[in-house]
């Protein structure tokens, strides 16, 4: 075998702060078969999607489909918990839309991660305080408990957080 690449995919999601009340989040996909772009505009502080644009340059599926019009259905949806179900429900999960739906989701995740990054700037530098920082984070937000390996029972970060088991 020649070790030549058989298939390649690049996906880039970027979030840009346009103004105090506006974010733009875009996802660009380029792979062996597909080239596509989706951009959402999000209004703060509600994180409401106020605009969406898309472009499907190369695709395996339905040519000439008005993807831009199709995606307008997500306008008004708020980026937040439960959004994936809403977005999938509104856009649909047909093969023709699946990639674009995923790209909308990636744009939304980008927005959430952008704010997550802002929060993580507050993580103390001192190693001894790092553990306490994350413990406090879980303490303040019960949803984090057992949501990943780092916050699962047995991890020092949730030590002493006794589950309310009967």
């Amino acid at each position, binding site marked *: 075998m020649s070790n030549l*690449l058989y298939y390649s995919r690049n996906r880039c999601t970027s979030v840009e702060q346009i103004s105090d009340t506006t974010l733009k989040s875009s996802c660009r996909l380029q792979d062996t*078969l597909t080239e596509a772009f989706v951009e959402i505009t999000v209004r703060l502080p509600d994180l409401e999607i106020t605009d969406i644009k898309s472009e499907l340059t190369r695709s395996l599926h339905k040519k000439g489909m008005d993807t831009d019009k199709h995606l307008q259905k997500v306008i008004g949806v708020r980026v937040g918990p*439960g959004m994936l179900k809403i977005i999938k429900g509104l856009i649909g999960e047909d093969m023709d839309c699946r990639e674009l739906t995923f790209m909308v989701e990636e744009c939304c995740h980008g927005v959430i991660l952008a704010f997550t990054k802002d929060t993580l700037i507050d993580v103390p530098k001192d190693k001894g305080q790092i553990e306490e920082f*994350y413990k406090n984070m879980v*303490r303040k937000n019960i949803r984090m408990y057992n949501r990943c390996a780092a916050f699962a029972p047995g991890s020092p970060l*949730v030590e002493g957080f006794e*589950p309310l088991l*009967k």
Partner: protein
Amino acid sequence: MLKFSRNKLVSIVKEDGDTLIVHGVLDDYIYSLEINVSIRISDRRILSIDGKWNRWTTPECPRAIPVLKEAVGFCIEEGIVPEIHKIIGRKGCRHFANLLIECCDTAREAAMLSRWEDAKKENKELSFEEFVETGTQKLPVLQETVKHADVEKKVKEKPAQIKVSDKKDRTENKSAFDGTSKGFVIDLHMHTSPASPCSTAPVDRLIEEAKIIGLDGICLTDHNYVWDERAVEDLRQKHGFLVLRGNEITTGQGDMLVFGMYNDIKGIVKLEDLRQEVVQAKGFIIVAHPFRGFLVFGVGRLGLTPEKAMERPLFKFVDAVEVLNGKVTEKENDFALTVANGLGLFTTGGSDAHEVSEVGRYATRFSDKIKDEKDLVNALKSGNYTPVSFR
């Protein structure tokens, strides 16, 4: 200036006629991670997987690496996505899950290319577009339906509720009633299995638990699911306990708890349309967990003020606000209460239980006894109730 950026790169090499070697990289402002996956083309199964962190956040993130092995044997069909979220995401790390999903999706397309190359051996003129359009690219149905032995194993999720030393009693200032007050307490929000796929709680066990902890009744509010009236009556008789029907319906503006309207609504509906149906049925609509926030940051980080939140159009279409919900933070519940009070809307509480042990964490205390669903709707419209912290 960019506020955040995430790049994912997936590269696939065909090692032999039947094996894809997939290398995935995820690199963003917070995390950097890589995985290597080998996948057999003929049965689309993951043969091996390993991964590594380059940059991560908590000191315990490395615990996610061994969990990756649980993906060995997964079949990379599209239906695998929820399993990857559930097993790799919940037990390991959501960012590894995200990258694995990307790798599986890419590998599926590479496998399709590979099958087209095979098909061309029979028909040299077959273009890739024809191959795709004629449906010949479709995969043969696998004889074996089980994706992986571990996939079928239930992920035992511990309750999200935790007992911490500084946890305060939320009834102190929220409720006109205390733990000894009389009244009729109903948990207005809970999910049963299998009606709600996200729940692990069989209905009989939920009812038994509700009786044990001293609730007076419960409402079954499964996601977009209408319980059969007779089935619920049978449950009432069987357990000698008040069991009522509700429905948690997903709208474009979030989840709504609906009572007194039993139309079977599937998919996502417009809140305005739902409101019309509820009004026609003379029912009642409560916005569920309206300010459920994010894992790492809350609504405060976004600069959302109660005044601004009160302007949300959704509040024009609801009769009440769920201000005590067992799945959100105290701050989020407090925020919901402030907004509801500001708007003069009624307020309710419900556990949003998805596990037996969560039933009754929050509930709603009515001033009068509720006998049936009609009573419940009338009571909800009267406003003679208050949300309570119950267990």
